[in-house]
């Protein structure tokens, strides 16, 4: 028995007549082909999830190689600076294009968004599957690139280095990033249409859980910004293959133009990474505080505001590039505007804890880690948006530390938190929460040891992308490397706790954390077509109808007293 019959009259039936109770999307059809050609958003999401986690393992391995090499100045584990340069390039490219950008929208978003919305699937299931295979093509092209001699351009592919380097794998990897861009565009397009068109009756815009708002804002950026990356990479390929001068000054091109194009995508891309994580954190914090999220509308609007501002701040990556002082000043001023909606979100999350009933579950520990790490990542953004301090800090380890706090400490920690949040829903199994929480703590400690050190390293003047360094920086590098090993232990424990759930995990109840949004009202794992009949949509942040049921080992949504759902119960809600 993998599904649990909800006794309450308000719950949605999780079985369909004539179909066995154990029927769910994982068991509905069998065989490898039923996965390869599936059009089910949940299966596509699960395939994305394993693929992204595989890429994360690979990118993480390169990170450990980098950190180990930096234990001592000069050669440590490789005597070749070229090898080191390939490692950091691979680490960056894999983590950005194959892991963080697709991680939340394409993996968790695919699985959860339609169910949360109350839809049977995304708007374009075939496009969804196509987008997954584009991801696979991108990943394969990365491997082809390695076979052809790899690439040492840095993940930013700055010209003229990228068009003149002798490394053999540059064109395959540019093609990979181009293809991955389309994978991202299609996912975004799918989600925009799904949110606009497939909301069931009652799911108004301001009824949508904040995760949906975040994914929606993300999808807009994906669709509007990613084509710019596509055309830029294409121009780079053209320049490298047929020597048409677009960016290379020796052929009449302009390398700073490339930087404008690249950051016009890649700055919004930072918000493609962080916004979905913010959505997850809104969900985890509200559900584990068992109270209405504080300032719902302000959080929703701040997602849209961040998406908007993300398009007009790209120039802050180029304060030292030779851009004019006037441009620098304008970009600096606008960049600060991103700080405001970000700060507002943090304040709202904290206010949600106030007078809540805070359950310290494993996902909640990740959400609290996120709050801590995102605050540091966000605040250090002030140093980099400020003109005079950025001139000193630009292209040093300070920047490395800052974006790891945001991209890893926030986006990836949010992703891992979301994984723990929805794992029981996705696979119908509970993981060992004790082990999961310990792992979270170890990752948190390891992360800070690794990356906080790098703030000092950078502000003391250590440039980034250095294979060799001055001996006075060694103490910081050693501490940072130790931190990375601690993190590796933490992630290993996380993997043990999650995979262990397949072997000795309890069967998950439909609603283990006490959520109210629709995905918690269908079975764990969800049935093949999510909802037998259109679900009733209540206020997803009204937890007064959610009750702990010891018999289920989980929570039960009893809407019989909710006047919105059951008009006969008028007035009883207030007495609750």
């Amino acid at each position, binding site marked *: 028995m993998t599904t649990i019959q909800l006794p309450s009259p308000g719950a949605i039936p999780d079985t369909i007549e004539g179909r066995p109770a154990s029927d769910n999307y994982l068991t509905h059809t069998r065989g490898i082909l039923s996965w390869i050609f599936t059009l089910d958003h949940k299966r596509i999401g699960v395939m994305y999830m394993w693929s992204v986690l595989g890429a994360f393992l690979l990118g993480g391995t390169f990170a450990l190689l980098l950190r180990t090499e930096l234990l001592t100045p000069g050669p440590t584990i490789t005597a070749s600076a070229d090898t080191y340069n390939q490692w950091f390039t691979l680490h960056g490219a894999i983590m950005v294009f194959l892991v963080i950008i697709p991680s939340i929208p394409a993996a968790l978003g695919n699985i959860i968004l339609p169910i949360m919305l109350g839809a049977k699937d995304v708007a374009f299931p075939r496009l969804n599957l196509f987008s997954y295979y584009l991801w696979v093509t991108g990943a394969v092209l990365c491997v082809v690139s390695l076979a052809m001699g790899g690439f040492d351009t840095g993940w930013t592919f700055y010209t003229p280095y990228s068009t003149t380097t002798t490394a053999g794998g540059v064109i395959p990897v540019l093609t990979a990033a181009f293809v991955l861009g389309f994978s991202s565009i299609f996912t975004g397009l799918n989600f925009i249409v799904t949110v606009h068109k497939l909301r069931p009756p009652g799911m108004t815009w301001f009824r949508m859980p904040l995760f949906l708002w975040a994914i929606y804002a993300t999808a807009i950026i994906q669709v509007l910004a990613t084509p710019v990356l596509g055309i830029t990479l294409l121009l780079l390929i053209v320049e490298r293959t047929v020597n048409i001068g677009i960016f290379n000054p020796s052929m009449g091109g302009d390398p700073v133009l490339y930087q404008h194009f690249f950051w016009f995508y890649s700055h919004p891309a930072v918000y493609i990474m962080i916004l979905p994580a913010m959505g997850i954190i809104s969900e985890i914090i509200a559900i584990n505080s068992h109270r209405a999220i504080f300032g719902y509308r302000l959080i929703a609007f701040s997602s849209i505001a961040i998406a908007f501002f993300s398009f007009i701040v790209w120039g802050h990556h180029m304060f030292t590039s030779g851009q004019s002082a006037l441009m620098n000043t304008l970009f600096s001023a606008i960049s600060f505007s991103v700080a405001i909606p970000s700060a507002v979100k943090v304040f709202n999350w904290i206010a949600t804890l106030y007078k809540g009933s805070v359950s310290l579950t494993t996902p909640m520990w990740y959400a609290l880690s996120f709050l801590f790490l995102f605050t540091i990542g966000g*605040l250090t953004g002030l140093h980099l948006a400020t*003109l*005079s301090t950025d001139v000193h800090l630009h292209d040093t380890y300070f920047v490395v530390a800052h974006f790891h706090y945001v991209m890893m400490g926030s986006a990836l920690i949010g992703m891992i938190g979301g994984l723990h949040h929805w794992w029981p829903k996705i696979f119908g199994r509970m993981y060992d929460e004790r082990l999961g929480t310990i792992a979270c703590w170890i990752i948190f400690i390891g992360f800070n040891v690794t990356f906080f050190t790098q703030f000092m390293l950078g502000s003391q*003047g250590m440039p980034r992308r250095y294979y060799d360094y001055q001996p006075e920086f060694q103490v910081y590098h050693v501490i940072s490397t130790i931190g990375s090993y601690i993190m590796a232990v933490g992630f290993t424990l996380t993997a043990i706790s999650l995979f262990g759930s397949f072997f000795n995990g309890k069967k998950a109840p439909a609603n283990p954390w006490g959520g109210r949004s629709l995905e918690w009202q269908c079975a764990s794992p969800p049935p093949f077509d999510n909802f037998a009949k259109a679900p009733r949509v209540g206020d997803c942040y009204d937890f007064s109808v959610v009750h702990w049921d010891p018999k289920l080992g989980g929570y039960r949504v009893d809407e019989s007293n909710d006047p919105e759902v059951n008009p006969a119960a008028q007035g009883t809600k207030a007495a609750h």
Partner: protein
Amino acid sequence: MTHQILAHTASQISALAAFAQTGAAEPTPPTFWMPVGASTISQGVDHTLDVINWICYVFFALVVGLTVWFVVKYRHRTGDKFRTDYPTHNTPLEITWSVIPTIIVIGIFVVGFRSYLDIYTAPKNAFDIKVTAQKWAWSFQYPNGALSDDLYIPAGRPVRLVLRSTDVLHSLYIPDFRVKRDIVPGRYTYAWFQCDFPTGQPGKTPRDPNAKVVSGPEDDAQAHTLFCTEYCGTGHSKMNRYVYVLDEASFGQWMTDQSQWMDKIPEEELYFKAGPKIFARCQQCHSLDGTVGIGPSWKGIIERVKAYPIVGDGKEYGTWEDYIRTSILVPGKYVVPTYGNVMPSFKGQLNDKAIDAVLGYMQQLEKFDTKTGKLKAEFDPATGIKK
């Protein structure tokens, strides 16, 4: 609290203004965050950083403090009843915490903008030094034609660097001066700074253990470090040199000596008096002990060149000297297939006399230390003959 932050910000701004007027008496010592501050703008930058840091400390403490407090106070255990007395929104509060950060970031912008103007605008009387960056070396050219691999600047005078690159992007970064500027091929960019505090001069001023400026070559005078901070390939992390600040008189003397330093050396002494200095430029890529680096080792290079099929009677090159000379001036003309075509041309940087010095150096390699490239101790530095 907000009031305090604003007051603090205001006091920092006035402190900034005060510093701009008076200047400091000595380099600011390194702190937890920042390295030695030795330029006229470094204190402005450091104060901006301090302002931002304090704002960060306060907000960080606020966020973490409230989070921990609420989590502990409102901790819930499974099965307990949920609290229901919570507020769902509070418009005045939400407006307040949108407006306060807005005011604060405007303040930070203004402080940062003011100190940026100082960084950006070079004074009119600045002393120009032309800088050429190439994979993976720096070349500094002074108004009298003198060339150097390390940067020498006069103390107490604004210096403007005119930057150009012959290949890919580079970036000039002197942390102690808080200066950074990308070097873009096909464009000229500028960086300027002024340092009022002389460092030592290699070969003339010994290290002072009490000096605030502590970096610099181990066996030489103190100096500030100069880095390349825009990724440029294999030798990127080795593309760093030193900055020596000399008082006005020594700087003039140094510049004159530097422009003529080879002229005074007799032809037969070139290899041991000029050779090691030139080699210091080459050792990023070439070794003396047979280790293969980015380029071939100089150990045994003459024999290897003579054995190449393209050198010798009736071939492209008549003599090994021709081949080496071409490799220095037109490096891409013939590249041994196991190496990349990455060597920059030294045309205009090494004249005939300097090339003669290199050729002589290669012929007498056994007299030189393979690590430092300098004459071994058993040879007399004045004559080059064994003591």
